[in-house]
C-alpha cells in the first residue's frame, strides 16, 4: 500500500474550501497553520517581555531611581518573568511540536485539530488580561513570577484576580496542547515507527507533554488557593488561620521544578536533531539520550525544595534535596557528552543552526555548572536570591531554550517557507546575539557573588560598574533580535528557493516532502524502512 508518498502529498486534493484572510487563521485546524500562529505569538511575546526587560535594565543602568518607581519595577520583573516563561518559551515549543511532530512521525495532522485551534486561541486572551492589568487601577502583578504568599495574597496590590485568571487560561492551553501531543504520538505514528525509532525530537516533546499534564494542574490548584486566600477568606497560606506560607512554596515548586524541564527538554530535542545533521554523523547514544531525558523528567519531581533551602528546612530534608539535585547532573552530563561525541570525528560544517546549537551546548553547560553550584546547600545560602541565580537561569533559558528555538527556526525555516534565509543577516544575528548575551548575563555571576540581591530597583555603589555593562549587553541583545525578525520576514517573502532537503546531513521524514511543506502532508502514511 505504500506508494511514493512524495507524489502523494504534492497532489493532494483540497477537502474543503480554504477560507482566506483572518478567517483562515481563526478557524484553522491545520497543524502547520497553528504551529505558525504559536511561533509568531511567542515571538511577539518575546519582544514584549524583552521590552519590559529593557526598561528594567535602563533603570539599573546606574544607581538611583531614574525611570520607574520601585513598585512599578516589581510589576516589570513579575510580568517579564511570566511573559517569557508562559508566553515566549512554552508557546514557541508548542509551535515546534505542532509543525514538526506530525511531519516527523508521518501523520497527516495532530490528533485533535479542533482542540488544537482552541488551545492556541485562548492564549492571546490570557496575555491580554496579564498585560492589560498594567493599565488598570491596581497595576500589574508585583509579587514576582513565583507569587509567594502572603505577598500575593494578603499584601497583594489587587491584581491577583487578573493574574490568577490569566494563569488558569495559560494552564488550560498548555494542558490541551500537551494532550494533543501525547495522543498524536501514541496513536498516529506511521506504521513501522516504533517508539525507539522515533526521532529524539519527538521523544523529548513526548516526555515534556507528560510533565505538562502532571504539573500544570498543580499550578492551577495553587493559583486557586491563592485566589481563595485573597478574596474568599480561606487560610491555606495564612498563619493566622492555621495555614503556612512556606507550604505555598512547596506546592509552587512542585510545579515549578518540572516546569524548568518543560522549558529545556524540547531544547535538547532540537539540538539533538541539528548536531547530527551538520556533523554528518548519527546521534551518539540515541537510547541513552532517551533514558537520560526520561530520568531527568522523573528526577524533576523530587528536587523541588532546592529552591527553598533558606526557608528553614530540617537538616535531613536539606541533605535529601541536595543529593537528589546533584544526581540530575548525571543524565544532563550524559547528554552533553553525547553531543560532543556526535561531533567527534564527524564532518562538520557551520551553518547558522549549527552555530546556535554549538553555542547552546557551551552556554547551556555553563548554566548547568552554576546549577550544580547552586545545588550544594551550604553554598546556596550565599547564592540564593542573588544575581548569581539570575545569571544561572538566564544561561539555561536564554542561551539554552531560546537559542535552541533560534537554531530550530533556522534549521526548519527552509521547510516552512520554501526559501533559504539570508546568510549574511543571519550571521549578523548570531554573532551580535552571542556577544551581547554573554555581556548581558556573564557579569551577573560576579554581581551575585559580590552580594547583589535579585529583584531590587536600586543597588549599592560597588555594583555600579557591572550593572552598566549588563545593561549595555541587554540593550544590544534586545536590538539584535530585530535582526532575527528581519531574517524571518525576508525569508518568508523572498530568498533563494530551498531544496526539499537543503541540509545534506539532515535526516527525518520532514525532508521527504516538498519545500515549502504542502498544506497537507502524509495523508497516506509513509513507509518506514527497517535498518
Amino acid at each position, binding site marked *: *500500500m*505504500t506508494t511514493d508518498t512524495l507524489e502523494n502529498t504534492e497532489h493532494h486534493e483540497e477537502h474543503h474550501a480554504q477560507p482566506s484572510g483572518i478567517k483562515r487563521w481563526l478557524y484553522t485546524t491545520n497543524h502547520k497553520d497553528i504551529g505558525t500562529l504559536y511561533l509568531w505569538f511567542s515571538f511577539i511575546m518575546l519582544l514584549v517581555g524583552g521590552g519590559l526587560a529593557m526598561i528594567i535594565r535602563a533603570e539599573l543602568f546606574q544607581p538611583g531611581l531614574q525611570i520607574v518607581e520601585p513598585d512599578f519595577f516589581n510589576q516589570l520583573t513579575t510580568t517579564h518573568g511570566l511573559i517569557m516563561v508562559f508566553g515566549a518559551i512554552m508557546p514557541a515549543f508548542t509551535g515546534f511540536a505542532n509543525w514538526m511532530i506530525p511531519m516527523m512521525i508521518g501523520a497527516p495532522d495532530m*490528533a*485533535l485539530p479542533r482542540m488544537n485551534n482552541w488551545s492556541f486561541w485562548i492564549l492571546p486572551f490570557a496575555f491580554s488580561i496579564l498585560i492589560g492589568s498594567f493599565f488598570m487601577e491596581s497595576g500589574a502583578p508585583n509579587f514576582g513570577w513565583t507569587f509567594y504568599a502572603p505577598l500575593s495574597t494578603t499584601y497583594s496590590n489587587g491584581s491577583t484576580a487578573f493574574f490568577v485568571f490569566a494563569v488558569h487560561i495559560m494552564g488550560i492551553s498548555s*494542558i490541551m496542547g500537551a*494532550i494533543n501531543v*501525547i*495522543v498524536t504520538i*501514541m*496513536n*498516529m505514528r506511521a*506504521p*513501522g515507527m516504533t517508539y525507539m525509532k522515533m526521532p529524539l525530537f519527538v521523544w523529548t516533546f513526548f516526555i515534556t507533554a507528560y510533565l505538562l*499534564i*502532571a*504539573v*500544570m*494542574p*498543580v*499550578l*492551577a*490548584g*495553587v493559583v486557586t*488557593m491563592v485566589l481563595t486566600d485573597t478574596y474568599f*477568606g480561606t487560610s*491555606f497560606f495564612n*498563619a*493566622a*488561620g*492555621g495555614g*503556612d506560607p*512556606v*507550604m505555598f512554596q*512547596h*506546592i509552587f515548586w*512542585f*510545579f515549578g521544578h518540572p516546569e524548568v524541564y518543560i522549558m529545556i527538554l524540547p531544547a535538547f530535542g532540537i539540538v539533538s536533531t541539528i548536531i547530527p545533521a551538520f556533523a554528518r554523523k548519527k546521534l551518539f547514544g540515541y537510547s541513552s539520550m532517551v533514558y537520560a531525558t526520561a530520568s531527568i523528567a522523573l528526577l524533576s519531581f523530587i528536587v523541588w525544595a532546592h529552591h527553598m533551602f533558606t526557608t*528553614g*528546612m*530540617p*537538616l*535531613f*530534608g536539606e541533605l535529601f534535596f541536595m543529593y537528589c539535585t546533584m544526581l540530575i547532573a548525571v543524565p544532563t552530563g550524559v547528554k552533553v557528552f553525547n553531543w560532543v561525541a556526535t561531533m567527534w570525528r564527524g564532518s562538520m560544517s557551520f551553518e547558522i543552526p549549527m552555530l546556535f546549537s554549538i553555542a547552546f551546548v557551551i552556554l547551556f553547560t555553563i548554566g548547568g555548572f552554576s546549577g550544580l553550584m547552586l545545588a550544594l546547600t551550604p553554598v546556596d545560602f550565599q547564592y540564593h536570591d542573588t544575581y548569581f541565580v539570575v545569571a544561572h537561569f538566564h544561561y539555561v533559558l536564554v542561551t539554552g531554550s531560546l537559542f535552541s528555538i533560534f537554531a530550530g527556526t533556522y534549521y526548519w525555516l527552509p521547510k516552512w517557507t520554501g526559501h533559504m534565509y539570508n546568510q549574511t543577516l543571519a550571521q549578523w544575528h548570531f554573532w551580535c546575539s552571542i556577544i551581547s548575551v554573554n555581556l548581558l548575563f556573564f557579569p551577573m555571576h560576579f554581581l551575585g557573588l559580590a552580594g547583589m540581591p535579585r529583584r531590587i530597583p536600586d543597588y549599592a555603589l560597588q555594583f555600579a560598574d557591572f550593572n552598566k555593562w549588563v545593561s549595555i549587553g541587554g540593550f544590544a541583545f534586545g536590538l539584535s533580535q530585530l535582526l532575527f525578525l528581519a531574517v524571518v520576514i525576508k525569508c518568508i517573502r523572498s530568498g533563494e528557493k530551498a531544496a526539499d532537503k537543503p541540509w545534506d546531513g539532515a535526516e527525518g521524514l520532514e525532508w521527504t516532502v516538498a519545500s515549502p511543506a504542502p498544506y497537507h502532508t502524509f495523508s497516506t*502514511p509513509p*513507509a518506514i524502512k527497517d535498518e
Partner: protein
Amino acid sequence: MTSDKPTPQSHTTTVKKLMFVVVGMFAFGFALVPLYDVFCDITGLNGKTNDEAVAYTADGIDTSRTVTVQFITHNAKQIPWKFKPLIQQIKVHPGEQKVVKFYAKNQATQAIVGQAVPSVSPGIAAGYFQKIECFCFERQPLQADEEVEMALQFYVDVDLPKDISTLTLSYTLYDISEKIASL
C-alpha cells in the same frame, strides 16, 4: 504492513485517560495541603506543634537531662495588644510537666479576638513538645482594656534528640476579629 489508521475511538480513549491524569493532578495539588501537614508532623518542618491537647503519657521523668525552654511572643501587624510571657525561660527535665503563664491586654478601644499561633525552633523538636493545655487551642476574645493571664501546660518528651538542649516556643498573635465577623 498493517494499516493501523487511528480511529476517533482510540483518540477518545487516550484523551479520557489523560484527562483523568489532569483531574487527578489537580486534586493532588489540593491533597498536598493535608499531606504537607503529615509531612510536617513527621519531619518537624516549620516547627508546627500539636493543635489539640494531648494527654500526659510520659513514662517517668528523665532527671539526667535538663532542657531550656524559651518563650517568645510576637504581635502581628495591627493588633494593639500587650502580649508577653511572664517568664522568659524555664529549665525542665524531659517528661516533667510545667505550667507557664502568658499575659495579654487589649489596649484598643473596641473588643478584639486574638489567635496565638505557636511555632517551635528547632523544628525537629516540635514533635517532642507536648501541650497538655494551651490558650492557643482557642480564640481569645478580649474586651477593650480587658487583661488576662493565660496558661500553657506542657512537657517535653523523653525521646527528645540528645543534641537539643534549648528549644524556643514562639507565639505570634493575630487579630482575627474580621475573619470571625465575616463567617
